[in-house]
């Protein structure tokens, strides 16, 4: 098993799938000679040519709209949105078109596209290069949303996404690209969409998270255990829609205490749905209120260091919440 950075796992899987299946194309701003602004598609235009690795004009709605059209005519397009923060002008194409094509045509048409985009903050990207607005998309039936933060999951979920018959929003944490390195199984590793993973098992409380906050949560859980504060189970959702209800509820029924952590602001975030789901399905098993930690309840992440740091949850704030939870 090779050890790879998150970005390498994505890059290598893209190349592997494009070699295996001619129908797969990549389109987006600067994905060609530049290899993408983060170099996720480095050297791909050289191998696959500019008919399959397409530098598009600066127009997000056309990128998604054209990808949709290409998918309706037999291709498996991967559309890159340069930053999640710039996806808004494509929302009509994503939410009103891609997500509704199968349903509105009664299954006559379907739309197998993947939308890859870097999200998340902590890199001095400020209000418009740091956003975590996944909840806008997870609420949309017809769309699938994944946010792998381990290289193996990124490789396995990207493969599933490319061959899924429905549109999949594939979220890549830009801070994780070069911060997270881990083992990746060789040849064709696949991770099914809709399955969470228990990253660390425990018995006293459950942390449910995803993205970079998963790693902060792990650190907080371990720190608490070291000082004998209890045994914490940590779940990486990986897929945000569909949610892995089974894995979530199993853990809740075991520990009876839940802390949900994500980088997005709390109000209306993925954590709200997970919390509501838990009260509906596992109320009788709860020994404490389901708690949520999220980014600051402000329009977006500020640029300057002290404000950016104050915006983000971290091991300390998570640890403090865990202790509150343990005290119940």
């Amino acid at each position, binding site marked *: 098993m090779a050890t790879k950075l998150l970005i390498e796992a994505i890059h290598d899987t893209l190349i592997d799938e494009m070699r295996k299946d001619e129908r797969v*194309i990549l389109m987006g701003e600067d994905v060609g000679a530049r290899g993408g602004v983060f170099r996720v598609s480095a050297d791909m235009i050289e191998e696959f040519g500019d*008919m*399959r690795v*397409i530098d*598009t*004009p600066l*127009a997000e*709605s*056309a990128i*998604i*709209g*054209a*990808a*949709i*059209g*290409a*998918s*309706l*005519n*037999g*291709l498996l*397009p991967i559309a890159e949105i340069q930053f999640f923060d710039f996806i808004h*002008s494509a929302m*009509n*194409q994503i939410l*009103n*078109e891609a997500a*509704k*094509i*199968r*349903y*509105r*045509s*009664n*299954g*006559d*048409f*379907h739309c197998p596209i993947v939308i890859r985009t870097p999200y998340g903050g902590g890199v001095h990207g400020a209000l418009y290069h740091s956003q975590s607005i996944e909840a806008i998309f997870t609420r949309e*039936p*017809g769309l*699938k949303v994944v946010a792998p933060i381990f290289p193996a999951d990124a490789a396995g979920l990207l493969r599933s996404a490319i061959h*899924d*018959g*429905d549109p999949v929003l594939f979220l890549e944490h830009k801070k994780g690209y070069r911060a997270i390195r881990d083992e990746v199984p060789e040849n064709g590793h696949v991770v099914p969409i809709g399955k969470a993973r228990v990253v660390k098992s425990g018995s006293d409380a459950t942390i449910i998270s995803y993205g970079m906050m998963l790693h902060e949560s792990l650190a907080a859980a371990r720190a608490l255990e070291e000082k004998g504060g209890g045994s914490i189970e940590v779940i990486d959702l990986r897929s945000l829609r569909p949610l892995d209800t089974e894995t979530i509820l199993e853990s809740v029924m075991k520990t009876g205490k839940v802390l949900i952590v994500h980088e997005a602001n709390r109000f209306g975030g993925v954590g709200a749905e997970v919390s509501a789901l838990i009260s509906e399905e596992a109320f009788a098993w709860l020994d404490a209120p389901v708690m949520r930690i999220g980014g600051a309840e402000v329009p977006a992440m500020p640029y300057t260091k002290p404000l950016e740091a104050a915006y983000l949850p971290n091991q300390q704030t998570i640890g403090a919440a865990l202790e509150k939870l343990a005290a119940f």
Partner: protein
Amino acid sequence: MTSSTARPAGVAERPDQRGPLSNEQLRQMYETMALARGLDERMWLLNRAGQAAFVISCQGHEAAQVGAGFALQPGKDFLLPYYRDLAISLHFGLTARDVMLSLLGKQGDPTSNGRQMPAHYSSRKLKIVTGSSPVATQLPHAAGVALAAKIRGEDTVAFTCTGEGSTNQGDFHEALNFASVRQLPVVFFVENNGWAISVPMAKQMNIAHVSERAAGYGIPGVTVDGSDPIAVYTAVAEAVERARRGDGPTLVEALVARFTAHSSDDDDRMYRPLNQAQELRANDPNLRFRARLIEEGVMSEEQVKEIEARIKVQVNDATEFAENAPYPDPSELTLHVYGS
């Protein structure tokens, strides 16, 4: 010819010619125009009778649509229509029964099985691509359909239609630019009836012809008289050839008239004088084309009667068939959200 301004307003490039169309084809053209009109008028009756909740019309657009349709190859080329495209959808193979099933939202409606509003024509088998109600979103789709064809080296053409008011949407701009940069085999067809619901052309854009927009993308732009199906055929045939040759997209604007209110939910007396609507009908393309074909000896009075008779049968049959068809079962509600 790269802009309508090269020509006086609304005059087709070769209005005198009818292109390489056989008399048989010309009669088919007329029959499809007339069938569309017959179905459309029946839909309004059903709406007024309370049987159909919503109707939106192709009346006044038939000649433009059918003329364009004959320049394409149904079964091979893709059609990405909008809600007025009943006539060209029929030309692509949609049947009268299909149309009435979707009007009444009945089981078996091939466009959506009753899920979409009427006039959202769609059929994968017929290469009529499913569309939504938000306008102009089908234009980038058409570019994408053409992109796939070009990547595979096929000479398929994507033909997409919209109204002139919808060319003010960002998606119009982004789609034409994308298609031109990649030199994709797509034809953008604008059915300009001068109104966006109640908003007249002058309040929609500060140009005389939508085709003037082609210059901003470095593609040819043409304006044709949409009441003359042969003029439209000629202009679209040229655009289609260009696309098949690999010389990229064309913007074709057909000047048409909207005979009815915007839809059955609209009352156009609030914003346009009644006599205007009447004047438009005075110049009905269907009647003019029929007279012309008779006059030119392409079609006999006999044949006209046969056509009218066939249409009457089809419209009645389709209506009855749809009226007697069951509604989808409520259990269908949750089907086809995801494939797996």
